[in-house]
């Protein structure tokens, strides 16, 4: 599963970790995140994320 990077603050969403604070369990792909999920650091919306190799 691909990692995605926030183009605003640089946060990387790693499917292996999920996002505990938003109740997203590990193993959830970026595509499967709910549409209203936002960057846990800066609040940017999903469309501001880009695929990353980081």
């Amino acid at each position, binding site marked *: 599963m691909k990692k995605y990077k926030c183009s*605003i*603050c*640089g946060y990387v969403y790693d499917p292996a970790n999920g996002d505990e*604070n938003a109740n997203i369990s590990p193993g959830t792909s970026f595509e499967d995140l709910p549409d209203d999920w936002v960057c846990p*650091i*800066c609040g940017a919306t999903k469309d501001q994320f880009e695929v990353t190799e980081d």
Partner: protein
Amino acid sequence: MKSVEIKKDIYWVGAIDWDVRDFHGYSTYKGTTYNAYLILDDKITLIDTVKKEFKSELIHRIREIIPLEKIDYIVVNHVEMDHSGSLPEIIELVKPEKIFCSDMGKKALLAHFHREDWPYQVVKSNDTISLGKRSIKFIETRMLHWPDSMFSYVPEEALLFSNDAFGEHLASTERFDDELSIGELIRHAAKYYANIILLYSRLVKKQLENLEKLNLKIDMIAPDHGVVWRSHVKEILEAYHNWCNNKTEEKALVVYDTMWHSTEMMAKAICDGIEKEGVNVKVFNLEVNHHSDIMTEVLDARAIVLGSPTLNNGLLPTMAGFLNYMKGLKPGTKIGAAFGSYGWSGEAVKIMTQYMKDMKFNILEPGIRFQYVPTHAQLKECVEFGKRIGKAIKEGI
């Protein structure tokens, strides 16, 4: 209006704002400074500028040293208007060869001033430019506290220009940390952290680790507000380390508002109980305390005890405002508890508890609420409630 030499041929040329009392919701009782710095080298470099209204102060201080036109480079560490507001006029006068900023900095400058024709030079972390005898290494610090933020480090001087990080809102003619009381400075720096930086603590932690990894020698930190750190660099770095790791003290805050003194009576009884356990406790009535001052206390408190009566099936507006503010700043985990008097429906305790759950606080037990005016026995229950909070504080979060 004198400029101040902070290192040989490096000057503070900023402005002192003695009058500002409100910084979009942050009470600045002691004013602030907007710091800009001038480096004299083969390439004369200006680091940041000042709020628009203070551009004459900046120009005056630079002219005391050199004619403005001699400046070659401008570095924009942070685009927020209190540091970039006078940039258009300064660029007009200076006609700089280059303006250094981060990628997000360029985007933000374009979105603020709409000038495609400025000579931007985008830099990334670890890019280095030579000024002649000295150089500047850039370190991007995204979201500390804007996407554009970056540090500029001068290795030859062991000097870090840190934009808003490590700063404090404090107007003074003294420019150095050792010219004022260190206790007072750390308190102001704590207020700055609690109200501006706190929500990015995760990134602060990473950045502090990054600085350590880069193994930079830092014997001076020059932020964009307040004093230049030269004698207490270790202390301010240590303070940031504690704050970003949510290091708490055996301390509780009772924050409340009241309609007819009933919730106030409960607040004081709870305070009594906490005190009986030998734990430090502070009481803040939202009617008379500014939310930004309470946030400073939240920073190292282990427990937050919130009290509001129920008004219109909800919270008093002061408590709703405070909770909205605190939630946005994402404080670390605390022990949370709620209380309040009510007339008939009594939703306030539940709403405050939900807010604290959303902030990942550990809710000790269901809050307590009493109808109308508490009896003597009910106040005794409040004291017991306070004692249990005090005990929990001593056990840790």
